[in-house]
């Protein structure tokens, strides 16, 4: 095997090498020069993102263990974009809050990202679980980063993510072990026979439960609100998007590629999970007072909508899932960065701290409004097309009842999203003067805003790219 054979893995390898490089650079830099580490990470991420258009990334590695295609490249771009935005938005905070641990922070983030970028292409179960854990384990540490401040409890957040994550890993392992043991092979194509037995069904359900934990599907979502509330906000901006993109890619690999013959077992369960997720996510979000906690339950509800695309058949549904993830990326990272900007200004993380934002910082309030509208699915921002397309996919697949339920709960969601907007636009504040926002953070918010509005105005190029990307899933 020569180095050229690894060409399709290039994006993941660049990120992993960059993580190691950062560790070394961290040792060589003087403490006062450490803030450059953040800029270096940002440069590497944007460089890798640009490289995804320049390098040839298609092809098999090791006779089909890893399969590079438009599918893996599309997902890698989403993850790299989310990571770049989260790093840019958190630059000043990380330099101020953990001046001596910046190297560790960015190294962990890049290692997790390397696992994510490599995950969608895995076509072999051992490589798959290794990438899955490479993604997960650094996230436990990132969530626990920092001290108690501003009502946050990072250690508690990290421990909840860890215990639930490790338990879901154990469940996934048991399912995977059953499949590998029965098949005598760990290749996805050989994993399930054409006529599966009952044990295969048990294994598929174990895998479904284990992976549902990771992406925060109700009723396996208990860790989501505590982790989002307790962890540092720039970490949450990353944690709430990139691992979800990777998680859905993993879902597609396991259920559409490896176990399609078991569909009669996992499809009814998935249908049930989507219903529970939409109901719980939307209803529990209504009484929330903390903005990050509200966003956590909103995130649970959004996962329900994304899974709807999954129910909506293989090709069209999976493509619309990709589009939804892209729209969700910009709106969700943007929301957390706005929340971060407000918390950074010494206010707090509750919805009441948004009071009077429109009068104090009109641009920040406008960005907030656009993100909220996108998450709620109001026409002419990205989220509307995302919801519209997943509903179309579900309708075409004959899940009319889900479309009805989804539309109903989209109305419920409007209620709590507009509750946040009302705080910013209608309520009065005792404070006055604009909210100070650091330059990099402002730039990241502007990029999210452009993405949200741009995808709302011109969804077609991305839809076509998503449809093309799905062809590479097999």
């Amino acid at each position, binding site marked *: 095997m020569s180095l050229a054979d690894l060409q399709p893995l290039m994006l993941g390898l660049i990120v992993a090498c960059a993580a190691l490089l950062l560790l070394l650079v961290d040792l060589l830099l003087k403490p006062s020069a450490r803030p450059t580490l953040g800029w270096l990470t940002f440069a590497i991420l944007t460089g890798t993102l640009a490289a995804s258009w320049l390098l040839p990334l298609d092809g098999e590695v090791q006779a089909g263990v890893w399969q590079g295609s438009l599918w893996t490249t599309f997902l890698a771009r989403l993850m790299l974009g989310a990571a770049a935005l989260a790093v840019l938005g958190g630059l000043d905070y990380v330099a101020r809050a953990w001046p001596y641990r910046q190297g560790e922070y960015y190294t962990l983030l890049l290692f997790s990202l390397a696992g994510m970028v490599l995950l969608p292409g895995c076509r072999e179960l051992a490589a798959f679980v*290794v990438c899955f854990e490479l993604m997960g*384990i650094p996230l436990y540490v990132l969530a626990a980063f920092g001290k108690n401040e501003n009502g946050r409890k990072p*250690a508690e957040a*990290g*421990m909840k993510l*860890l215990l639930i994550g*490790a338990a879901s890993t154990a469940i996934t392992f*048991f399912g995977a072990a059953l499949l590998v043991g029965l098949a*005598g092979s760990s290749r996805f194509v050989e994993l399930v026979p054409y006529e599966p037995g009952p044990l295969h069904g048990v294994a598929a359900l174990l895998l479904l439960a284990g992976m549902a934990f990771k992406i925060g599907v109700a009723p396996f979502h208990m860790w989501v*609100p505590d982790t989002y509330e307790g962890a540092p906000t720039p970490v949450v901006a990353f944690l709430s998007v990139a691992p979800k993109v990777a998680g859905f890619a993993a879902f597609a690999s396991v259920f559409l590629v490896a176990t399609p013959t078991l569909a009669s077992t996992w499809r009814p369960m998935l249908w049930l999970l989507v219903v529970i997720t939409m109901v719980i996510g939307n209803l529990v979000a209504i009484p929330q007072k903390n903005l990050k906690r509200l966003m956590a339950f909103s995130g649970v509800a959004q996962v329900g909508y994304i899974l709807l695309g999954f129910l909506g058949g293989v090709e069209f549904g999976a493509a619309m899932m990709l589009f939804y993830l892209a729209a969700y990326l910009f709106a969700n990272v943007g929301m957390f960065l706005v929340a971060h900007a407000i918390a950074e200004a010494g206010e707090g993380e509750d919805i009441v701290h948004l009071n009077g934002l429109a009068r104090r910082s009109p641009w920040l309030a406008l960005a907030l409004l656009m993100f909220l509208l996108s998450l709620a699915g109001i026409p002419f921002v990205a989220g509307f097309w995302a919801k519209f397309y997943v509903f179309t996919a579900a309708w075409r697949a004959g899940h009319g009842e889900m479309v009805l339920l989804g539309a109903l709960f989209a109305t419920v969601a409007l209620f709590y999203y507009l509750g946040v907007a009302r705080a910013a636009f209608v309520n009065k504040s005792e404070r006055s003067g604009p909210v100070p926002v650091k330059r990099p953070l402002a730039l990241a918010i502007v990029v999210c805003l452009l993405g949200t509005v741009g995808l709302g105005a011109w969804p077609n190029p991305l839809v076509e790219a998503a449809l093309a990307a799905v062809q590479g899933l097999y």
Partner: protein
Amino acid sequence: MIAILLIASALFCAGVFGLLTQKHAIGVMIAIEVMINAANLVLVGLGQHKGAAVGQSFALFTIAIAVAEVVVGLAIVLLLYRSRGDVQVDEAREMRQ
């Protein structure tokens, strides 16, 4: 083969029981380890039964991953102990007033 599956399932269920009943963070992590070892037992046992080496080699990966997870886990438990003075899982709920 049936015997292997029965023993492994019993072990897995014991782990799940521990996961649901343990109040101490270390106890929960031990329960998770038991569950992962049930998976290892299935891998090695069924691999032997089928005569395929893939089960054994897969088990090596799961063991390594489990170790990495425990190392990070104990570090976080230690962090929580320093900030709170105890690591009872059911009492770490300061965010849900």
